[in-house]
C-alpha cells in the first residue's frame, strides 16, 4: 500500500437497492480505488437459488449497474459485484452478465468482465463428501447423497481469492457467483497489501451499505478506507454520519455471534476492536484480528419439494371474531373431512394450514384468554400436496367450505370476503434450503470457474 489507505465505495447494501449517483461522485472525489457491492443473500429464501432468479427486478439492477459501470469507466477503477442475481448460482450470474453487457453497449464502453462461477455439480460434491471433505454445521448432521440429489442448485460461497486473481488479470468489472458479502468488499484491499483484520472487518461493517450509519434513511452507501493500522468508515451521503455505536452495532446484525465471523480461510475476531470518532461523520476502527484457518467454503443448496395452493378470505363478522380460535379449529377439521370424503386416498399425505392474519398468523400461538377481538381478520388457506394438480384439487374441494363455513349451524350460511376470482392460486413448490455444510479445499480456486467477456476484443473483431 505505497499510496496510503485503500478506499472502496460500497454504493448500496445490495445491487438494485438504489445506488445514488451523487454519492458515487463524492466517493470518487475522495479518491476511491474501487466500487464493490454484493447483489444478494440467502435472506429472502431458497426460491431464488432453486429457480435461478433475481429478487430485485431487472430494471432496478440495470439502473444501479449503469450508475456503477459509468463511474467505474470514467474513473478507471474496477466495479466488483458478488452474489450476482440474489443467489449467485450460474443462472443468476448469467442473468446479471446479460444486463452488464447491455449496459456496456448503451454506455459505449468496452470493459473486460470476469465471471466467477461457484455453482457445484452434484458428482463433484458426492466425491468430496465421500472423501470426508464436507462437514456439517449445527444444527445439521453429516451430508448424504440423497440430500445432494434433492437440491436444484448448490453453490459454494467464495472467498476473496478468485476476485483477487481476476483483478490481477485486468478485470474492469467482476461479476461473482455466491460469495461471502465481506469477501466482495475486502478483496481489493487484500490484493493491494492491506492487513487482513481491518480489510475483513471493513467488509463486514459495510456489507449493508448505509445500515452502519446513524441515519439509515439518509443515503445508500459508505466509503471504507483501509490502512495499515485499521480502517475508517464514513457515509457517502453528506447529511449522514457514522458514530462508534452505529458502526460497532453492525457486527450484531444477522450474525449469530457478534464477535467472531467465520470466513473462507479464517475467522474475523472483533472482540478487542476499538471504535473511535475521527470527525463528526467518520469512525476509525482498530484492533480487528484475522485468525487464519484451514480453507472452507460454505455450501448452500436449494430444493423444490411439495406443492402449494393458497386462498384468502377476509372476515369482519363480529360473531366469528369473538371466537376466532374455535372458528379456526372447526373449519380446519371440516376442511380435512371434506378432502377425505371427496378426494380420499388419492389426496395422499396432504396438509392444510389456516393462518388467521390479524389474530395469530405470524406466531401460530393461541392468544391468551381475554384478548380483545380484532376488527377484522384475513384467513390464508394453504394446501400442500405431492403435486401441484393435487394441491389445486384440494383447494377447489375446500373452496365452498372455506368461503361459507358457519360458526354455528342455526343461521343461514355466511359468505366471507374473497379478494379475487378464481379464488385459488397455485403457488408452486415449497422451496427449502437443504445444506448447512462446509467443503474443505486446499486451493481457494479449486471449486471456482472463471470466464471472461472481453468487450474490447469484441469491439476490435
Amino acid at each position: 500500500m505505497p499510496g496510503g489507505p485503500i478506499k472502496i465505495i460500497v454504493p448500496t447494501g445490495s445491487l438494485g437497492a438504489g445506488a445514488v449517483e451523487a454519492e458515487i461522485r463524492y466517493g470518487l472525489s475522495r479518491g476511491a480505488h474501487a466500487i464493490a457491492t454484493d447483489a444478494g443473500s440467502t435472506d429472502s429464501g431458497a426460491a431464488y437459488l432453486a429457480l435461478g432468479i433475481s429478487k430485485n427486478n431487472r430494471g432496478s439492477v440495470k439502473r444501479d449497474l449503469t450508475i456503477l459501470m459509468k463511474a467505474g469507466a470514467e474513473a478507471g477503477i474496477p466495479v466488483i459485484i458478488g452474489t450476482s442475481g440474489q443467489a449467485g448460482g450460474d443462472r443468476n450470474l448469467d442473468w446479471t452478465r446479460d444486463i452488464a453487457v447491455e449496459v456496456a453497449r448503451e454506455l459505449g464502453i468496452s470493459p473486460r468482465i470476469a465471471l466467477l462461477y461457484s455453482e457445484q455439480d452434484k458428482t463433484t460434491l458426492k466425491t468430496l463428501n465421500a472423501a470426508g471433505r464436507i462437514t456439517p454445521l449445527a444444527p445439521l448432521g453429516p451430508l448424504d447423497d440423497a440430500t445432494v440429489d434433492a437440491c436444484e442448485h448448490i453453490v459454494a460461497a467464495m472467498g476473496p481469492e478468485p476476485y483477487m486473481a481476476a483483478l490481477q488479470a485486468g478485470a474492469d468489472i467482476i461479476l461473482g457467483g455466491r460469495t461471502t458479502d465481506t469477501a466482495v468488499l475486502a478483496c481489493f484491499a487484500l490484493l493491494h497489501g492491506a492487513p487482513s483484520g481491518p480489510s475483513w472487518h471493513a467488509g463486514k461493517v459495510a456489507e449493508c451499505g448505509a445500515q452502519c450509519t446513524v441515519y439509515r434513511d439518509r443515503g445508500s452507501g459508505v466509503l471504507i478506507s483501509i490502512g495499515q493500522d485499521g480502517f475508517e468508515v464514513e457515509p457517502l451521503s453528506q447529511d449522514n454520519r457514522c458514530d462508534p455505536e452505529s458502526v460497532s452495532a453492525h457486527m450484531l446484525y444477522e450474525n449469530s455471534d457478534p464477535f467472531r465471523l467465520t470466513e473462507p480461510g479464517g475467522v474475523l475476531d472483533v472482540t478487542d476492536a476499538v471504535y473511535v470518532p475521527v470527525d463528526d461523520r467518520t469512525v476509525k476502527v482498530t484492533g480487528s484480528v484475522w485468525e487464519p484457518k484451514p480453507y472452507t467454503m460454505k455450501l448452500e443448496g436449494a430444493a423444490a419439494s411439495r406443492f402449494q395452493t393458497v386462498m384468502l378470505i377476509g372476515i369482519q363478522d363480529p360473531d366469528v371474531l369473538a371466537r376466532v380460535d374455535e372458528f379456526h379449529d372447526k373449519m380446519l377439521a371440516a376442511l380435512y373431512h371434506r378432502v377425505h370424503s371427496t378426494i380420499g386416498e388419492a389426496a395422499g399425505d396432504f396438509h392444510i394450514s389456516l393462518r388467521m392474519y390479524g389474530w395469530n398468523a405470524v406466531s401460530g400461538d393461541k392468544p391468551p384468554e381475554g384478548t380483545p377481538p380484532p376488527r377484522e381478520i384475513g384467513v390464508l388457506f394453504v394446501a400442500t400436496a405431492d403435486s401441484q394438480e393435487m394441491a389445486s384439487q384440494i383447494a377447489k374441494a375446500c373452496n365452498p367450505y372455506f368461503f361459507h363455513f358457519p360458526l354455528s349451524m342455526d343461521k343461514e350460511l355466511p359468505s366471507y370476503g374473497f379478494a379475487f376470482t378464481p379464488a385459488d392460486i397455485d403457488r408452486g413448490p415449497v422451496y427449502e434450503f437443504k445444506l448447512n455444510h462446509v467443503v474443505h479445499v486446499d486451493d481457494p480456486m479449486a471449486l471456482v470457474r472463471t470466464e471472461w467477456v472481453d468487450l474490447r476484443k469484441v469491439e476490435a473483431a
Partner: protein
Amino acid sequence: MPTVNDVCHHVRSKNAGPYWVTFDLFFKDPESFGRYADSPALGPPQMERLFGADPALVKRFTVPSLNVVKISYARSSPQGGMVERDMHCGQQFVRLLDVELDAPAGA
C-alpha cells in the same frame, strides 16, 4: 417485575442464515444491562419454552460497550418450509418482550 420491554429501548430479531435466528436486546442503560444481562430468565430453557429451541443450541453473548445481549438459537425447521410463518424471523422478538427478568429460568 420488569420485563424485557421495560428495560430495553430496542429489541429485534432476524434470521442469521437459513438455520439460525438471532435476537438483539438493546438495554436502556448500563444499570439495566448490568443487572439483567445474565438473567436466568433469558437462558436456554426460556428459548425452549418460547420457540421450541434445543437448549444445547442456544448461544448468548453480552456486548457491554453497547449494553446489548445477543441470543441466537438453531431453528427446528429451516427457513421457508411448508409451515413457514416468518421467513426473515423479523417478528420473533415480540415473544421476548413480556419475559419477566427477575423470574427464574424458563418461567
